[in-house]
């Protein structure tokens, strides 16, 4: 029995349409026109306990809807959803006591209260045993380096500090499952790294099942072995990230600086991406010609000053993937 099971999930919203202006608003009062939006069409996947899944897709693809259904806020139109054997929207209170949720864009804490007071309030909201609470809190405070923030009101924290506090707040009741909705949005580089490092440890060492949505592909690269790409309310891919890369954009790039003017190169499986004076950028398919052979062939014929190979950045892989599936935001 997987920890998270989603089968044939569908959800349609009705959105009221309104003509612009005051007249439009008045007309809307009398007669509303509705447009239906299929947020989820037919989404199925499952997650074993202890997995770490990256959930990506363009805006409006259905990521948030899925997270909302999984966390019991939203009821699907049809399909089956179970988390730890519970149907989230049927047993909301029991369900949410066992999950942790972090929204990158919204605070879960109390704006005017010191961080530690917010934590104490959560202890009473979740009915956490005081001894367990003290132990868990102290661990989280140490791991997320919150010691010096505990006495400060939340409104005085920087975004990165606040996010660390948010993550601690979502874990005080020791949930088995953690949903992270864009946890690194707007953070500076060290904060992003700290968040990633912590999530990774939580998953590896505590076995917490993590489902993470993000637009930052470095989150995915650093964290998720498995990636689900969602678009138009459907699962477009569900595979290890490396497999996705192989299927979508397996080309590598070769950057060469020649001693003289860059020459014409005409080899099978090789394309010129850019040329500028003495520099040349090639794209090659490693299945046709391997990097060592290609480099050997070029250095044999020409005097070369510098040479290096790169993989396309993960953003490019995903952009290409959206492109192939016509999934980019309309």
């Amino acid at each position: 029995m997987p920890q998270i099971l989603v089968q044939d999930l569908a959800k349609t919203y009705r959105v009221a349409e309104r003509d612009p202006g005051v007249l439009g608003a008045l007309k809307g009062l009398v007669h509303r026109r509705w447009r239906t939006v299929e947020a989820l069409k037919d989404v199925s996947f499952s997650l074993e306990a202890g997995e770490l899944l990256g959930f990506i897709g363009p805006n409006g693809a259905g990521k948030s809807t899925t997270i909302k259904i999984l966390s019991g806020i939203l009821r699907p139109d049809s399909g089956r959803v179970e988390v730890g054997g519970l149907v989230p929207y049927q047993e909301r209170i029991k369900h949410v006591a066992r999950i942790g949720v972090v929204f990158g864009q919204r605070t879960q804490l109390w704006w005017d209260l010191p961080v530690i007071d917010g934590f104490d309030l959560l202890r009473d909201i979740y009915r956490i045993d005081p001894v367990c609470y003290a132990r868990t809190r102290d661990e989280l405070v140490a791991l997320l380096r919150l010691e010096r923030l505990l006495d400060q009101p939340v409104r005085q924290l920087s975004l990165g500090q606040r996010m660390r506090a948010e993550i601690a707040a979502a874990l005080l009741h020791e949930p088995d499952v953690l949903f992270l909705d864009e946890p690194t949005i707007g953070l500076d580089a060290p904060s992003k790294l700290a968040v990633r490092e912590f999530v990774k440890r939580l998953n590896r060492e505590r076995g917490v099942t993590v489902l993470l949505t993000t637009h930052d592909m470095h989150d995915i690269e650093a964290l998720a072995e498995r990636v689900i790409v969602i678009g138009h309310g459907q699962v477009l891919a569900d595979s290890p990230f490396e497999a996705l890369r192989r299927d979508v954009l397996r080309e590598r790039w070769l950057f060469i600086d020649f001693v003289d003017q860059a020459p014409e190169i005409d080899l099978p499986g090789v394309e010129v991406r850019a040329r500028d004076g003495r520099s040349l950028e090639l794209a090659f398919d490693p299945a046709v010609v391997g990097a060592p052979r290609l480099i050997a062939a070029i250095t044999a014929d020409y005097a070369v000053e510098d040479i290096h190979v790169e993989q396309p950045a993960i953003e490019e892989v995903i952009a290409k993937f959206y492109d192939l599936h016509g999934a980019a935001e309309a």
Partner: protein
Amino acid sequence: MTALFLLTRYFSASVRGQLQYPGSTILLAAGQFFTTIIDIVAAWALFARFGPVQGWTFGDIAMFFGMISVSFAIADFLSRGFDMFGAHFIKTGDFDRVLLRPRSAALQLIGYDFRLARIGRLAQGLIVIGLATASLSLEWDAAKVGLALWTIVGGVALFVGLMVFQATLAFWTVESLEVMNVLTYGGVQAAQFPLSLYAGWFRNLLIFIVPLGCVAYFPVLAILDKPDPLGAPAWLLPLTPAAGLIFLAVSFLAWRFGVSKYTSTGS
């Protein structure tokens, strides 16, 4: 019990938050006191000049006025989360956060905030009741104190019910909620004076639809030992505050329907 404990925890958190700005809290409380007591001062000036109106003296009026003020102040203190629901929870999407916590949504909304500034109106109500007592030379025996407390329970329930009802409407629209102020603030204004002064249709509205008359007019008549000029039997008067509790129960039924609507549409 555990719910009550949580409320005390919410309460102390809310107070600590507000005490970060003590000056603002004190000024707001003073403001509430003076803006709400001005009406009764004006009424006093009129009574002093023109004498009783339809058999009602200034003391009678002050008793209605003070009782409603106390009820409304307590209700307002308890239901800030419902009062602000459209703007602070639905528009911002923060209601999602409420649903993510393993407690009933209503409990969390009551705990959302307790505005200390409401003490201003509460103090006004108590002082005005004191004035009424002095003006009427009223003897507060145990039965009257009990009846007054019961009246306030009914009044608090009714006003909380109105706020819950207003919050429930926010599940459908957040644009025209000011309309509800006609019922809450307008209701307070109307119920501060005896019902027998109003036109028939308006009286019926305040008795049968939004039963403000049942949490002020009728029970206060019993406290004043006055017969109802409208003819309600004397035995019925002390029972009427129950209507406030019924109104609250109906509001919560509507609220639950609204919450289930929210979880099926997400807006």
